[in-house]
């Protein structure tokens, strides 16, 4: 129900007075010079519309003077207001100069009176607002509201596309898993070397590599792998000094022969 609001305590003016010099208290109790002026005006006990700004100014200045004599610290805005009121007072006492640029003393006084009336009015408004029935203080809401339970009802969302994708994805994955790929036939480098060593044994003279390899390319699909592996093997064996390669021009047939019978034989052992 009513919780304690975190408001500052409304400190009573009299309460603030405790233990302090009386006049000091008075100044402290006011919320600024306008508040002080309003209080002084109230003491005139006349309608704010008929207030004498001149008399009010004199009272304010007297008050400030008194405070100074008591060596009270006054906030700057009280002094600013005092200076302005002293000026206003002198203007009000002097004969009005011919109409000039500046607002007349009467206008200034009227403006001040208006400000005072406006502050008075908003104070009244604040008072009547505070006097209204307030929730949790004067009037109460249901002490135990019955909460509305939120029931979440799932609505399933899926499209035919999702369904077909899921089906196809699943079936395809399994189908691929089950397919056994035909074993790819290759002529390995090892096989190539073996074959070439036979060749080297035979080829004391230049021998066309292609012609020699034909016997290994019985199946047509073996041709690329045999050629590739054989070339790699011959290059390797040439580097090792076992055989010599010759090609007369680009894309011409490759000729092979043993580097020398002795080396070839010794290498083989």
């Amino acid at each position: 129900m009513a919780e304690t609001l975190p408001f500052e305590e409304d400190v009573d003016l009299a309460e603030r007075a405790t233990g302090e010099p009386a006049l000091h208290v008075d100044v402290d109790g006011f919320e600024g010079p306008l508040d002080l002026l309003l209080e002084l005006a109230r003491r005139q006990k006349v309608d704010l519309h008929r207030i004498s700004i001149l008399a009010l100014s004199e009272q304010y200045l007297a008050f400030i003077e008194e405070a100074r004599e008591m060596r009270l610290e006054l906030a700057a805005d009280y002094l600013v207001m005092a200076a302005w009121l002293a000026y206003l007072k002198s203007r009000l006492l002097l004969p009005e100069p011919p109409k000039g640029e500046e607002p007349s003393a009467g206008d200034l006084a009227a403006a001040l009176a208006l400000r005072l009336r406006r502050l008075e009015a908003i104070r009244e408004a604040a008072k009547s607002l505070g006097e209204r029935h307030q929730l949790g203080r004067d009037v109460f809401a249901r002490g135990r509201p019955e909460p509305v339970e939120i029931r979440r009802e799932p609505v399933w969302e899926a499209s035919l596309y999702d369904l077909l994708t899921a089906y196809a994805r699943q079936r395809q994955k399994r189908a691929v898993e089950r397919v056994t790929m035909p074993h790819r036939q290759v002529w390995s480098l090892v096989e190539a070397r073996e074959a070439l060593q036979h060749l080297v044994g035979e080829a004391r003279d230049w021998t066309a590599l292609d012609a020699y390899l034909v016997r290994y390319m019985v199946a047509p699909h073996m041709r690329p792998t045999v050629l590739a592996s054989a070339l790699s093997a011959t290059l390797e064996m040439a580097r090792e000094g076992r055989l010599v390669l010759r090609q007369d021009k680009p894309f011409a047939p490759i000729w092979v022969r043993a580097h020398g019978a002795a080396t070839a034989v010794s290498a083989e052992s």
Partner: protein
Amino acid sequence: MDKRMNVVPLRAPETAEEPDHAEAMRIAEALLFAAAEPLGREELAGRLPEGADVERVLVDLRELYAGRGVNLVPVAGKWAFRTAGDLSFLLARDVVEPRRPSRAAMETLAIIAYHQPVTRAEIEEIRGVATSKGTLDTLIETGWVRLRGRRKAPGRPVTYGTTPAFLSHFGLDAIDDLPGLEELKGAGFLEGRLQGLAVPTPSDDTTLRDDEDPLDDEAFAPLDPGDGPEDAQES
């Protein structure tokens, strides 16, 4: 219960002996309304004007609110206002929550759709992973999948199939509107070069097949628990 406003005229509120009965009712009404907890007779009596007849106040208030949207009800020997029982639906609000089935659920659903009637073991065989009970439960919750019967086979496993709600959700007139193998390939769902893959022509005919028995037992309610492993490789 008469749902019309039950306006009970107060019994002789102006009789001389109890001039404050109406006022006591107002106060009790406000106290009960504002209270966070039910109020007992003593608590009320302490707040009502001197000499108020608490019992009569409560009886009259209860009568005043009988048949209304809010009733004065006894709660553990005390009294409180509560929403009328027949309006309890007001205290709940249904919020529609869009949810998407998991990938595993969609795959299982698709297999049920194409291969029905199908058992859990068969689903797992096609998918190649264990199907969690939760996935099947979810599908049944969606209303798209139903338990059809039991396969005439050892263990008598439950067979699953799709429902008319499935057709209407996916915008199908009939289950055989599901695209076949060639259509799936044509639409790019399946790779064209796949071979040896058969997509069955689905049927959701409610008539049990020759190898199906009816779900004779009562224990079909949740799901057959012994139908397969509970764990799942799937997420």
